[in-house]
């Protein structure tokens, strides 16, 4: 029987990558991703993980090498953060459009400037439209499990897209959490050896990454989009399978104390657990507050989302990135546009908070929930509000 033990989440993630039996890891160090790749290089150096570790000279090359490895049919993995992810941006689109099923961990960290190593989601949000499946972990156990799910989803012949697993830098990646590490034999059943549909093989030559004229470009993009949207169904199957083997349940959108709730906090990532504590406190005071958190960010799980918010009058959306010069943050934007066509829709209060590692405490979540209620009652027209900004 697997037991839970205290582990630094970064180490747990690298152990999950080991359990996934990856063939090639290419990585370039960036805080706060470093502990993951350090531990992986140790596992390779000790022969505990039979894989190649390619210590490339940049994140651009990290993703490029992972693409090359995946193209010959290897199970490929990389990890990065912040500026490193920004440097990969060009290749993010290419990896999905040439259908490379690789997996990347992003330890979310603010994008410079000012240069800042602390957590927010401003690194991953600009990668929203790159055609990757995107998952968010709220704790160490999820970070481990989602890493295993990611390979299954990516490599499914109906998907064949890269997957990113997001975990908050430092506030999740560097904390020690109780984690139940799955056992290798069961993981092997869950995640068999990667069997590529297509690979660079001298016996069956194919061309990958061809030049696409206006005659074909849009068709390629449509295929990627259909695969991405279709990956939600595959994720559901993968999660069902995972549940039967490991007993842990995963859904695209999760609900917490939503029964009878008028106001719902909407969160992503590890701030969720703090927000849950805030919900507990508010519930104790008799306030009708609950929470949903979005685990599957891309493709956006519309159906599951609408189901999760059913009955709620107010949504307090917590965004940890800013769509500059627009209407707030990317999550708020997504939700507002999703609700636009609904006849009955909750009031959406949009908050941008926690940028560059500003602490998001239980009190801050309570503040956002109660503000959302007040604004809804007053019918306040709001684009968004930045929380905790010192004006002087």
């Amino acid at each position: 029987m697997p037991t839970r033990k205290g582990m630094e989440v970064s180490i747990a993630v690298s152990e999950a990558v080991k359990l996934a039996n990856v063939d090639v890891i290419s990585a370039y160090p960036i805080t706060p991703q470093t502990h993951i790749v350090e531990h992986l290089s140790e596992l390779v150096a000790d022969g505990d993980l039979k894989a190649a570790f390619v210590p490339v000279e940049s994140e651009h090359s990290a993703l490029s090498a992972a693409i090359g490895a995946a193209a010959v049919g290897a199970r490929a993995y990389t990890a990065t953060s912040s500026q490193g992810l920004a440097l990969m941006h060009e290749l993010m689109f290419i990896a999905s459009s040439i259908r490379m099923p690789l997996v990347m961990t992003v330890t979310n960290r603010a994008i410079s400037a000012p240069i800042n190593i602390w957590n927010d989601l401003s690194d991953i949000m600009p990668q929203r439209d790159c055609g990757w499946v995107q998952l968010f972990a709220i704790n160490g156990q999820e970070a481990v499990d989602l890493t295993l799910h990611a390979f299954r989803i990516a490599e499914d012949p109906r998907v064949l897209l890269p997957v990113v697993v997001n975990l908050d830098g430092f506030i999740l990646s560097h904390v020690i959490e109780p984690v139940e590490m799955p056992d290798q034999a069961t993981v092997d059943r869950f995640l068999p050896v990667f069997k590529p549909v297509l690979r660079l093989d001298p016996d069956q030559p194919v061309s990958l990454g061809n030049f696409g004229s206006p005659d074909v470009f849009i068709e390629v993009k449509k295929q990627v989009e259909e695969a991405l949207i279709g990956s939600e169904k595959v994720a559901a199957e993968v999660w069902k399978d995972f549940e039967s083997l490991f007993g842990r349940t995963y859904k695209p959108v999760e609900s917490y104390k939503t029964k009878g709730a008028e106001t719902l906090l909407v969160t992503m990532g590890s701030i969720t657990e703090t927000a849950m504590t805030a919900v507990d406190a508010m519930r104790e005071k008799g306030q009708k507050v609950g929470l949903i958190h979005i685990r599957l960010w891309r493709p956006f799980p519309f159906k599951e989302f609408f189901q999760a918010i059913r009955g709620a009058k107010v949504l307090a959306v917590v965004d940890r990135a800013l769509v500059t010069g627009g209407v707030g943050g990317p999550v708020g934007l997504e939700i507002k546009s999703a609700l636009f066509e609904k006849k009955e829709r909750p009031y959406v209060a949009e908050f941008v908070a926690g940028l560059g590692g500003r602490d998001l405490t239980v009190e801050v979540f309570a503040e956002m929930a109660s503000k959302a209620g007040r604004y809804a009652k007053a019918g306040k027209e709001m684009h968004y509000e930045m929380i905790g900004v010192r004006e002087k």
Partner: protein
Amino acid sequence: MIAEDLKDFKRFTPKTLPKEEPLVFGHRACQGCGEVLALRMVAKAIGSPMIAVSATGCMEIISSPYPQTAWAVPWIHVAFENSAAVASGIEVGLKTLMAKGRIPERKITVVTFAGDGGTADIGLQSLSGAMERGHDFVYVCLDNEAYMNTGIQRSSETPFGAMTTTSPAGKITAGQTTWKKNLPAIMAAHDIPYVATASPAYYLDLMNKAKKAALIQGPAYLHVYSPCPTGWRHGTDLAVEVSRLVVETNIFPLYEVIEGKYVVRKNTRLKPVEEYLKQQRRFSHLTPELIQIIQKRVDAEYEKLLKLEGAKEEKKEEPPTEEGA
């Protein structure tokens, strides 16, 4: 080490050229393109089993208009500046899968093709990284001395004086104002086992070098002179002649750097640089003074090259030089 790798190496002769064409006809290169000629020869010399990687550029565009392809071998293009990194991933991927018994154990040559911009400018970092890490692959720079695919803009490989659309022959400056970046020297400084320069006019020399590069364990770098009639403004029937003149004028000497040891193909028909320059309209604005400056530089560079060879030759006998066409 190299001696061991090359123990079965047999030089190509006109009668033993391989029949295989990894890059087939039907591609969309310009009339008289010297680059596709060089590419074809390298691919032919290396042959199957190989996996080809192209950087973005002329050769990638002309060979791969989806749903067509001119590649009869597995081929991938990812982006402009990362072809060496993609090749790194392919090389370690193959090795790992072979070690794990997932694909049959055999030698598959990984070959990267990139232009001078993709090599000397935007791709230099990923190239340097791949060379330093020691991946077993062949990197081929097809040097047509400017960004031809985007419309003849200067690169760091554009020779002094050459007119491009971003180094025009103006009233104040006369074309490119800087000297060509010495990429083979930069590659040799990485202490890789094999570096060579080649020109398609010396096709046996070129193909033999490509074959050696493929046989040698570890990274190999080939810098291949690749005339572009469209960008250089010369006749479409002149690519081979221009490729010969550039060698005979010592502007582009042919040499190998084998485990650090320089081996220069001696030029027995030395010609003044003007012979070369006058065939191409990219140099048509050059004054006799500027041509003199170029001549002096070429002479000095060639002397330097011979010294590099001499410095290494003191201890050992001179190895045989490559036979040309």
